[in-house]
């Protein structure tokens, strides 16, 4: 299950609607807000969002599923996004990605079994003159070497078990 209580989800949607429903083109701001509060957009919140914005559930679901940024399931504790676009490729992004998969023991675009890390390929973080780059949560890192990757992951690994 999602790990989010229904009441939390309802409250999050209500807060997001309260803050954004009156803005023109409110759906994306509402979805960002819900995801910011809960870490993802639970399936059970679609109905309330649709009602709040006078949209059909299909329209809301269509938008959630169209955009890669919106998550329909609870994410891993640490989301590691690795740039795999051309500039980073020219500086060994593929080798770094292989290293990352081996270090974390999970394939690209999947999560570790313990739910601590998720590894995701992204296409450009705008740090192309300092390739290869990656982002953990909202923190960016550039000129990443396998050693630096291990240091960063090692520091996060010290944290408490989920």
């Amino acid at each position, binding site marked *: 299950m999602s790990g989010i209580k229904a009441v939390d989800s309802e409250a999050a949607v209500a807060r997001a609607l309260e803050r954004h429903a009156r803005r023109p083109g409110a759906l994306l*701001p509402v979805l960002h807000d819900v995801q910011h509060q809960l870490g993802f957009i639970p399936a059970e919140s679609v109905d309330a969002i649709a009602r709040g914005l006078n949209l059909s559930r299909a329209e809301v679901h269509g938008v959630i599923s169209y955009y890669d940024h919106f998550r329909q399931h609870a994410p891993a504790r640490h989301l590691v996004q690795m740039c795999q676009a051309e*500039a980073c490729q020219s500086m060994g992004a593929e080798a770094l990605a292989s290293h990352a998969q081996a270090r974390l023991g999970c394939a690209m675009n999947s999560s570790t079994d313990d739910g601590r890390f998720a590894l995701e390929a992204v296409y450009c973080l705008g740090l192309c*003159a300092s390739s290869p780059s990656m982002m953990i949560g909202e923190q*960016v890192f*550039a000129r990443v070497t396998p050693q630096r990757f291990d240091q960063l992951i090692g520091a996060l690994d010290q944290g408490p078990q989920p």
Partner: protein
Amino acid sequence: MSAPATVYVPRDSSARAVGADQVADAIAAEAGRRGIAIRIVRNGSRGLAWLEPLVECATGSGRVGFGPVQPQDVAGLFDAGFPTNAGFPTNAGFPTNAGCPKAAEHPLALGAVEELAYLKSQQRLTFARIGLTDPVSVDDYTAHEGFQGLRRALSMTPEAIVKEVIDSGLRGRGGAAFPTGIKWQTAMRAPATPKYVVCNADEGDSGSFADRLVMESDPLVLIEGMTIAGLAVGAEMGYIYVRSEYPDSVRTLEEALRAARAAGYLGQNILASGRRFDLEVRLGAGSYVCGEETAMLESLEGRRGIVRAKPPLPAINGLFGQPTAINNVVTLATVPIILARGASFYKDFGVGRSRGTLTVQLAGNVRQGGLIEVAFGVTLRQVLDQWGGGTASARPVRAIQVGGPLGTYVPPSQWDTPLDYEAYAKFGGVVGHGSVVVHDDTVDLAKMARFAMQFCALESCGKCTPCRIGAVRGAEVIDKIITGQDTERQITLLRDLCDTMVSGSLCAMGGMTPFPVLSALNHYPEDFQKGSEHASRRSPQKSAAVA
């Protein structure tokens, strides 16, 4: 007691990504330990990515730099006299080691920042302020020629503002190079109200980072440019659509918007002129195709980012069905200097019909990557020789992709062609937004061609068939070529498919994905033959039979 020494540590994400925050903390802590009074300014980045974190100190004779600085370097810098004795003798016209304090001899010392050849050889107009100022300080901005364009625009008619922009020759810097003033004229003349200004800050192209630099290092220039656009077309509301991959840009923009509003440069009564204009930042959600203007409008309206057919032009029927001026970040950030200094000042830079400056974004496998703003007409070879400093891997350069993932791989035979929209179009190239991604001789162009198709398949909005299905088939065909299955016939098929995509796609996503593919195939054909060589080695009987 003397005034505290001023130290600059950039807050731009290209600096933070390599430890600028930790460096700023280390400097504050070290100064505290030694009882030295300092003031740390989190300035923008100068765009010299290879020197980040680039720490600067104010001295009597200008700012001197140290970089790239890591936290563990900080104590040593202080031992050498940083930051109070960081400078050069006040009378020195240029940096020299003669009689300098020890800090100037520190291995990380770069001398006077403004005198760095990388910077001095540029013509910074749009990016005149980046790295100089605190990005969110209105005072700092106005002290460096900020809001002068807006002040002048407030005294002009909309027609006169539009004419100034048309006369400057400014063309869309997002890649399409459409004349900005013409776009504004169409929106200005559209009778419907309300009208909108939309800034396309969905900088999704690999290799490009100029938009990000504006937003994080000088966001007030974007705010000023959009306000001028609002005055020109008659809009009172503007949106900045920023990609979700740029959380730092969003934070800096929001801070700058609050500062501009508080100082009366945005809001109900701009500079007591009686004119209204305000801005809102909207967040994208990880869809590359939303960088296409009509898909971006769909997204802003709260729908899936699916491309619209044109016409109607967004200038007439755009956001929420209203007249909308849509421009890229760098384009809008160039407007203030055109208004402040006049169209002819700007137009004097450049060549042919490419007027003003190009923001070359030098990236990929290069030692000295960063932002290079120069007049149009510079060549790739000059960019590599004068600024690049060779590849990061120290191997020879083999291919350079110009203009983003939909741009071509430019072969060495064209490295002396001036970067000018028309000169590039003549050989099938694209200047685009000016990103230059360098690959060394380990690059496999067949693999890069496959990546272009795969990326298109991943990011296609799905509305038109040539893009949605063509990209998937394209990747499959290149797979067959790579593994040597009937190579020649597959190459014919690939060219045919590319032709369909170019002619039949609704937008640049499908329409230009063939550019990198075909340029790789045309200029680096040997990379597409490796598979058949392997295949013939694997099955000697078969090749014998053919012989």
